[in-house]
């Protein structure tokens, strides 16, 4: 296969698969439970642009300097360009083949998440975290292909273009046309609870503690600050709960049962007041944190989700802000 590979069979390669996918590949090799999926490599974006002969149009758009007031206009021009053309036939055929191999054993009603994995996301001086987008609750190949185009278009979102202008102020010159993005397609997890686990306390830099943010439903509600999540501090050396602060959790993000994407619904009153994790789950997350910190040999920032008592790791990256 030239453009796609099962995450289970891939070898990490940031240039080809981007930072996020390379990290997932490492986690799977280490035996960590990650939702099954495949990655569409960065060569496919190049083929999409070149086969449709839109590189000269993109080049034309960026041939002269642009200013903050121009970004919405530029972004919508590129979006229009992308949505007016198709993925090359050979890439679509590969996606269909790999999709049917990777997800052969899944129940029919499962849906998919399409996540961006850019080659620059892990560079310290170019921290794009939260800029590149994920698209949840894709039902079929047509939805997946549309979300892949949306992922690529997010490289040219108004925010991303402003980000590049900000870097330019500091004399870091990156042209939007040099960015590369791979795309991850995974089975979508519909968790009862999810969150972020830091294997150190990132508020007071205590490396003998772990910190958890958790809430009901999908974790995007936490990372995208749609809710005030629960906050739990654990003793890392010997499992113990040091502190629990129940967050309001007034809303709950779920896959839209009647459509695509996600919806934010009201959380039941009793669930708002209850901690979203019990002691057993906290112990399991503590174990996961210890495991991943040992594996990566550094404190980790881990996004996780619990579906029917199974903990899935969605992402693990180093905590970049710990004081020595």
């Amino acid at each position: 296969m030239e453009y796609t590979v099962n995450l289970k069979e891939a070898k990490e390669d940031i240039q080809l698969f981007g930072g996020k996918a390379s990290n997932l590949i490492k986690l799977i090799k280490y035996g960590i439970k990650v939702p099954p999926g495949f990655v569409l490599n960065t060569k496919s974006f190049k083929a999409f642009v070149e086969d449709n002969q839109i590189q000269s149009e993109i080049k034309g758009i960026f041939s002269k300097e642009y200013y903050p007031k121009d970004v919405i206009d530029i972004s919508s021009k590129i979006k229009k360009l992308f949505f007016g053309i198709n993925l090359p036939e050979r890439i679509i055929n590969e996606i269909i083949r790999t999709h049917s191999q990777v997800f052969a054993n899944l129940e029919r009603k499962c849906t998919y998440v399409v996540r961006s994995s850019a080659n620059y996301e892990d560079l310290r001086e170019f921290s794009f975290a939260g800029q590149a987008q994920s698209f949840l609750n894709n039902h079929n190949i047509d939805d997946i292909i549309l979300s892949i185009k949306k992922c690529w278009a997010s490289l040219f979102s108004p925010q991303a273009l402003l980000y590049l202008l900000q870097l330019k102020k500091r004399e870091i010159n990156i042209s939007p046309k040099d960015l590369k993005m791979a795309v991850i397609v995974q089975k979508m997890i519909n968790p009862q609870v999810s969150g972020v686990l830091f294997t150190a306390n990132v508020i007071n830099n205590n490396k003998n503690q772990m910190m958890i943010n958790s809430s009901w439903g999908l974790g995007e509600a936490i990372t995208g600050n749609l809710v005030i999540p629960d906050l739990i501090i654990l003793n890392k050396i010997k499992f113990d709960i040091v502190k629990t602060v129940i967050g309001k959790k007034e809303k709950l993000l779920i896959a839209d049962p009647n459509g695509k994407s996600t919806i934010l619904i009201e959380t039941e009153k009793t669930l708002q007041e209850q901690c979203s994790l019990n002691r057993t789950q906290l112990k399991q997350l503590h174990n996961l944190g210890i495991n991943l910190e040992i594996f990566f040999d550094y404190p980790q920032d881990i996004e996780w989700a619990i579906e029917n008592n199974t903990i899935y790791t969605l992402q693990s990256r180093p905590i970049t802000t710990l004081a020595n």
Partner: protein
Amino acid sequence: MEKIGEGLSCSSKLEVTGELVYITTIEDVIDLFDKATSKICLVDDAGITTLGPILSDLAATICTTGGPGSHLAIISREFGLPCIMGAKMHTNDLSSLNNRKVKITHDGEDKGFLYLVD
């Protein structure tokens, strides 16, 4: 000084004073782009995707939802910016705070406070 809000202090414990700007859309960010230096930005559910491009110019961020695991808090820590998440504000009319001079302080542990100073 009048206390106008408090929440979880998720990043640097620096005390900062600056002009508050309430941000809700990407258009607000475009308007602020060349004059974001030393501003203190208040957002509700607009997160890092909105504030990201100007974050490194700001003096601090305050958000009425979220926690230390929000991307806004993670990137604020990377830039060493004070960041108060899950802030309970004493007014519902957040836009009335636009352009007011405010100060951010912290207690010794994990609480952060917002004061009006003008």
